[in-house]
């Protein structure tokens, strides 16, 4: 699915509740978001940055 | 009287009119009949709990009548049904509280019965933990003194509860600052099951006065007029700036501690029967009948008036509504007080 639930995700590592919620609400595909948190975790900031400046592949 | 003196009270009888005597007796009788009805209601399963003042009416009425009721202040304890009735509490108020009905004046159904409060009579709300009312009385006494008023404050307590440091600290304050406080100990000889000699190493709670530097007096707590006389004296003294006094009124707790108690485990039936001979109602009735202050007919009339009032109270309370759940969360803070 586009937005995994909060918790440990096999591929993405730990998805925090706020990241899960933002992904769900904003329809973000988290596999496209680069994680900058501990151990490469996707942080809330990462999602917000992604939404503010989507990478070219998605900008179309 | 000099500080630290312990004497047996009742020395100088005040002038007491026949009418006043009848009025005192009336309050004792009403309290007794109401109290007895509470036991009946409990047996009938109509109420869950009762804690009784039976046997202590003389001390309470004698004390109340020595006050300027409604002006002076009182921080009472749970056995003070008769005292509260003298202050304006009604039988309806009492039965309402027994049943936890909304209209009861102590707490709107929040507190257990016999946790008195009557704002209009300056009778302060009290709690179950014993002796906490004693420092309140000292504080009220302090406020009276600060405002240079001529009021006094009466605080009552059981003899067992004088073991609490709380009580000692309160009396100490009143003694140091010569506050207009009367500490009345209703010594009914038991604290639930524990007799007085396991509470204190002195013979009377009045003896505690000498260690705290105030007057201490013992009085026969089954004799309403003796209590009234002593109380009138010490109230006058306090009112005129003479400082606090400690009075022990000795009587006997005729009933079990409460409706939850079974007193057979800790005292004999013989002991109880023996002590019933000094039932304050009997004592006063005999005195009044023999002295002609009360006729048999007047007594009968009083009895039926009391019964009517008690009947009315029960009928009224049974019909009265419980508090609404919507009110349960309030008022935790003054901002939430909603006056009806």
């Amino acid at each position: 699915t586009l937005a995994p639930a909060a918790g440990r995700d096999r591929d993405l590592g730990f998805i925090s509740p706020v990241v899960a919620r933002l992904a769900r609400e904003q329809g973000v595909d988290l596999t496209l978001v680069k994680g900058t948190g501990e151990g490469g975790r996707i942080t809330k900031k990462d999602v917000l940055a992604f939404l503010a400046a989507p990478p070219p592949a998605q900008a179309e | 009287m000099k500080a630290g003196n312990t004497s047996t009270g009742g020395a100088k009888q005040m002038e007491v009119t026949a009418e006043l005597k009848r009025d005192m007796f009336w309050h004792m009788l009403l309290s007794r009949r109401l109290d007895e009805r509470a036991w009946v209601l409990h047996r009938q399963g109509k109420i869950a709990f009762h804690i009784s003042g039976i046997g202590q009416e003389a001390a309470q009425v004698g004390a109340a009548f020595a006050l300027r009721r409604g002006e002076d202040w009182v921080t009472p304890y749970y056995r003070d049904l008769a005292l509260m009735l003298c202050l304006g509490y009604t039988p309806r108020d009492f039965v309402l509280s027994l049943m936890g009905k909304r209209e009861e004046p102590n707490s709107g159904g929040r507190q257990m019965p016999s946790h008195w409060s009557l704002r209009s009579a300056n009778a302060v709300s009290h709690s179950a933990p014993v002796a906490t009312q004693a420092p309140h009385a000292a504080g009220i006494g302090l406020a009276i003194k600060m405002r240079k008023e001529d009021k006094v404050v009466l605080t009552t307590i059981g003899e067992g509860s004088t073991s609490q440091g709380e009580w000692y600290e309160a009396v100490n304050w009143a003694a140091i600052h010569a506050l207009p406080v009367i500490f009345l100990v209703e010594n009914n000889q038991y604290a639930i099951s524990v007799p007085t000699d396991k509470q204190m190493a002195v013979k009377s709670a009045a003896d505690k006065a000498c260690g705290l530097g105030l007057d201490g007096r013992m009085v026969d707590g089954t004799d309403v007029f003796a209590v009234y006389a002593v109380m009138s004296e010490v109230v006058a003294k306090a009112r005129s700036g003479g400082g606090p006094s400690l009075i022990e009124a000795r009587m006997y707790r005729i009933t079990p501690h409460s409706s939850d108690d079974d007193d057979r485990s800790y005292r004999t039936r013989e002991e109880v029967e023996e002590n019933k001979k000094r039932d304050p109602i009997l004592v006063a009735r005999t005195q009044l009948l023999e002295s002609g202050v009360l006729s048999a007919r007047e007594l009968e009339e009083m009895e039926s008036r009391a019964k009517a009032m008690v009947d009315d109270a029960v009928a009224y309370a049974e019909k009265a509504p419980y508090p609404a759940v919507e009110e349960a969360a309030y008022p935790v803070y003054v901002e939430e007080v909603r006056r009806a």
Partner: protein
Amino acid sequence: MWRRCAVPEMTLIDAVRMAMDEEMARDPNVFIVGEDVGVRGGVFRATVGLFDKYGPERVIDSPLAELSIVGVGIGAALYGMRPICEIQFADFIYPAFNQIVSEAAKMCYRSNGDWTVPMVIRAPYGGGIGGGLYHSQSVEAFFTHVPGLKVVIPSNPYDAKGLLKSAVRDPNPVMFFEPKKGYRLIRGEVPEGEYTVPIGPAQVTRAGADVSVFAYGMMHHYTLQAAEKLAAEGVDVEVVDLRTLYPVDRETILASVRKTGKALIVHEDNLTGGYGAEIAATIAEHAFQDLDAPVRRLAGPDVPGVPFSHPLQDWFMPNPDKIAAALRELAAF
């Protein structure tokens, strides 16, 4: 069936009494002190018979003064005795607060281990018995904040006996709060004679996969009832009886949350600053990455006490229905 008969079923208060009786028989240093504990056998009759058996020197009717019950107990414990102090109702423990918090709790640390206070303070707690503001209180949260104390609450007769025996033998001060509504209501099997339940471990009293509930005392009893309701609705609830509230068994709590991902804490004490806060905070910090839902607390409302009048008391008290409702909501999240 034969074995069931050999293990007598009894009430929680009978188990409490049995524990004290056995410990007094075992160790002459154990004694009881409190109000009305002597000939009266305690107002809840927890000590009935002990006065006759052990005499007035070991079952002492104290003056009506809780501070001194505890303070004298501490003194005796310093001397090497093993006092069991009874506070008649938990509501009346505050006069002894200074002795408990300033003295009993701090004695070992402040003397670098030279002085210790092997003492038990027993007190019936909790509401739902028509006791109003001052005969219904839950006071555990005041003491689960105090290092140096141990705080224990049994939820059934077996644990009551086993934990109380452990408490009497514990070399530290132990606060032992008994759910008084359950005194005669909660029955269970209690073997005679020697066994103890260790202070420390929580117990998973019902294994489940969907939601974890952490409770103790009467609320644990109710939670098991609520869990049955939920089971009928297809929700598999795990129930953990905390038993020792302080120091708490973090591992069992976190393991359960790691499994279910959802946590509810139930107590009858009022919510804010109650014991549930610490459990919720612990989970939020240490099992955060396993959480699948907000950590929920079900507790008494933030009023100064349980009101007396029945409709108000019912409004205050958590019960199996309220717990079930909270569980349903959490399961659906």
